[in-house]
């Protein structure tokens, strides 16, 4: 059964949301999904770019009323 993990990278300038995501993806099994919380507008662009390049899967991206990005990614390989 796949499980969802939440990575709260709000307020993280270093290592930052994308590096937090990459490190967490390594701990996941194929098929698992992850929700990344980010306050960095750049994440909405650089996360999909990396996910596509490596061959994982973007599930969806939305921004809430407080401005936090919720980015859902599935580990595909």
């Amino acid at each position, binding site marked *: 059964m796949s499980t969802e993990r939440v990575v709260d990278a709000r*307020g993280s*300038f270093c290592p930052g949301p*994308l*590096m937090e995501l990459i490190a967490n993806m390594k701990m996941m099994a194929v098929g698992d999904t992850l929700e990344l919380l980010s306050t960095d507008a750049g994440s909405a662009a650089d996360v999909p770019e990396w996910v596509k*390049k490596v061959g994982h899967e973007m599930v969806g991206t939305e921004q809430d009323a407080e401005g936090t990005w919720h980015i859902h990614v599935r580990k595909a390989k």
Partner: protein
Amino acid sequence: MRILVVGGGMGGTIFANNLARRIHQEMKAGKARITMLSASDQHVYQPGWLYVAMGRATPDELVREQASLLEPGIEFHVDPVEEFHLAENHVKTKSGKVHEYDVMVISTGSRPTPENIPGLKENSVNCYTAENAVQFFHQLADFKGGRIVVAVGLPHKCPMIPLEVTFAMHDFIKDKGLLDKTEFYYTYPIGRVHSLENVAKWAAPEFDRMGIKYETLFNMKEVDGKNAAVLSEEGGTVKYDLLVAVPPHKGQEVIEKNKLGENGWIPTNRNSLHMEGEYGKNVLVLGDTTNIPISKAGSTTHFEAEVAAENIAAVIKIGRPVREYDGKVFCFIEAGKDRATYAMFNYTTPPQPKAPTGAVHAFKMAYNQLYWASARGLL
């Protein structure tokens, strides 16, 4: 109150000394007691290993007896914790002793795990242990020219090392007169040369000026030692003559074994520094071993330790904590040729690094000695 400190490195030591100063009256009166358990009788200034790798220091210069750094009254045992019994408020050590606590502070640090990337351990050098730093220096000193590749694993300790080690090697090779025979190739996991955007904006033109090539979005997948090549998750292949790694890290095995956190990272509240979950009320976590999404650095650890000490002292004296950790980090960045700059930031304010100067480098060199005063809780 019985305060138990697990770990005699940066976080544990700064915390215990700072707290002991604040509550020495209560300790004298027998109302409070600080006990520290560590895995070693030595205290190592790890940032010095970068200088060891460049032949500018030897490992013995970076070590002090842990007992000599502690405030009087702190009970110290070299007896690593093997079992955490959080529901019973006690730990069990290697020697079989049981230590009970009212408050426990965990600062057991992190460890490089190059073995987690196939081929990396056997085919690369790094400056993440004293032994490896010495080996790194030997390889660099014997280097006759070719391609030096820097490759970065995640997560890692000290976010400035990828840049610093590159600038430092550039100096080393230049001084040896081998610059025209050497190509530097820097790789980095995300789409710029450093996680901090403003640092990346400064470093990329520095690389261009020095002729250092770089490839971004490069996460090591494996190292093919036979063909001297690093393969990336993104599908890239980079050939090397000398491979310099910033290895991926994990927290300590004892943390994983006791199921305190996946890969040894303990889920920790980013403001109160309490361990998350049922037993977190009287457990605080400092330094590398937290899962807080900020730099695994000595400065992070230092600022966290100060907040924790002030709060525990306040709990003893007035019944409640007084401060929250705001995510403060201060990192020097050695920029080569005896110049340095720094990055200071917190959860809400990004850094604005300035152009490197000789004065900041001189301050970093002084800090390398001042560290011992800092560990004693004096700075």
